[in-house]
């Protein structure tokens, strides 16, 4: 298993951003859904080894990221695109991606071809020499995806990767995701349910820091069948039905605890 989380928690002061999540994921595209503040980004940041968990067990690529040596190995084989990607505006697309390839300790002989391939994959080959300051928001997002995939990561973590992409780019990007998911574990945090339906083999739904659903997109659709949950598409209805059930159960538990 490339990702193994056991009872993982992360607190910020009194807030439980992630509250006891257990999860396993092998190769494939794993969709992480949930409303704002559900804990998706905190979970992704822990998997990206930039945020230490408060408690629980985290294993990535069969290693413990809590130790320095294994963490370095994991980071060389990791790709990460956060929600807000910073960049140096004076870099060209090629320099930006090359910088990350070199930081990730890729063999120097492989770097030029890998950089060119990553830029090609995200459809920016014709803008490879353009300065980042001249790119549109969607193009910057694609440059960010290129830096994440340049090292052929075995674990790829993408936070809202399709935000700012137009429909044509989004469709192309889903194809890239499916290709990567054939041998790597790709975790995609998104609000866009249609991305999950089109690209993901597995899906998990988070709410209030907890995992409230884990299954296939077809299983999520099945949860919405026959219910009166809100949504224009079957996946959206499944999403709403699972959230409503989870919140109702949490409300019942809370009321019981208050009475007790």
């Amino acid at each position: 298993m490339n990702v193994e989380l056991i009872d993982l928690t992360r607190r910020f002061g009194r807030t439980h951003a992630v509250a006891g999540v257990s999860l396993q994921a092998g190769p494939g595209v794993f969709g992480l859904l949930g409303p704002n503040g559900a804990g998706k980004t905190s979970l992704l940041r822990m998997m990206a080894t930039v945020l230490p968990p408060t408690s629980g067990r985290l294993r990535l690529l069969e290693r413990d990221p809590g130790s320095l040596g294994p963490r370095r190995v994991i980071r060389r084989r990791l790709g990460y695109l956060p929600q807000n990607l910073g960049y140096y505006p004076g870099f060209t697309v090629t320099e930006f991606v090359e910088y990350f390839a070199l930081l990730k300790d890729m063999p120097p002989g492989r770097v030029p071809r890998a950089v060119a391939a990553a830029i090609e994959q995200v459809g920016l080959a014709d803008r490879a020499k353009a300065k980042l300051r001249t790119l549109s928001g969607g193009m910057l997002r694609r440059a960010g995806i290129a830096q994440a995939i340049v090292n052929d990561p075995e674990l790829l973590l993408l936070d809202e990767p399709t935000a700012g992409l137009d429909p044509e780019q989004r469709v192309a990007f889903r194809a890239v995701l499916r290709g990567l998911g054939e041998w790597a574990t790709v975790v995609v945090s998104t609000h866009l349910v249609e991305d999950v339906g089109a690209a993901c083999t597995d899906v998990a739904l988070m709410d209030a820091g907890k995992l409230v659903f884990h299954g296939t997109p077809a299983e999520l659709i099945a949860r919405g069948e026959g219910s009166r949950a809100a949504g224009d598409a079957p996946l959206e209805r499944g999403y709403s039905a699972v959230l409503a059930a989870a919140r109702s159960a949490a409300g019942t538990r809370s009321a019981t605890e208050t009475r007790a």
Partner: protein
Amino acid sequence: MTTTGLHEPLPGAAPAPRAERRAVAALRLAWLYLVSRRVPAALGLLAGLAALLWSALHWHWGIAGGPAAQQFISLSIEAGAAAVIAVTAYGPFGEPERATGRWLPYLRLGEAAALTAIGYAALAAGATGGLLPGGTLALLRNLAGITGIGLLTAAVLGGAFGWTGPIAYLVVTEVALTGNPTTPWVWSARPPHDLGGALCAALVFAAGTAAITLFGARDSGRRSSPE
């Protein structure tokens, strides 16, 4: 040359030896890192501050008054140089950069140490314009100590705020110099050969360098695990 503009061996040419390729890649990584930290602009500013120091000493710019006034210009220039060095700790890339291999701490350490050395060399060259209070030994102590404060500020508040520590120290020192400070933490008030002042400045520089090497400058209000 590929379509993306990266250098590759010409067809038929023998590939470069592995060690040579590694050295070229290391230099390329260091160059991209320094450019992303705006180090070329920082070098220009350090050269400008050195020219300013030379002018101030050569043409005897001065403010009438006690020790605070006498040291004001040189100390301000030293604090300015430290602020420039501290601000280069700011990195634009955030967490994706932190989530990479082993090189980042070395790059941070190399940058901080090299810029401090270059800053000292530049200001020492500027000091040839006239008589610098305390000489180049005091210059080294002051610059290292105030740079340490700047690096600590960058680690705690963020690279973009790295300048606030040196400027605050300048204000505190100037206020202290109006009295008769005895604490070695106001090292600029001590004679150049004073061991206590030198030790305090060295300690602060070591702490700042260690913090920036291990943790980097704080970004977006988020605290991450060390590299």
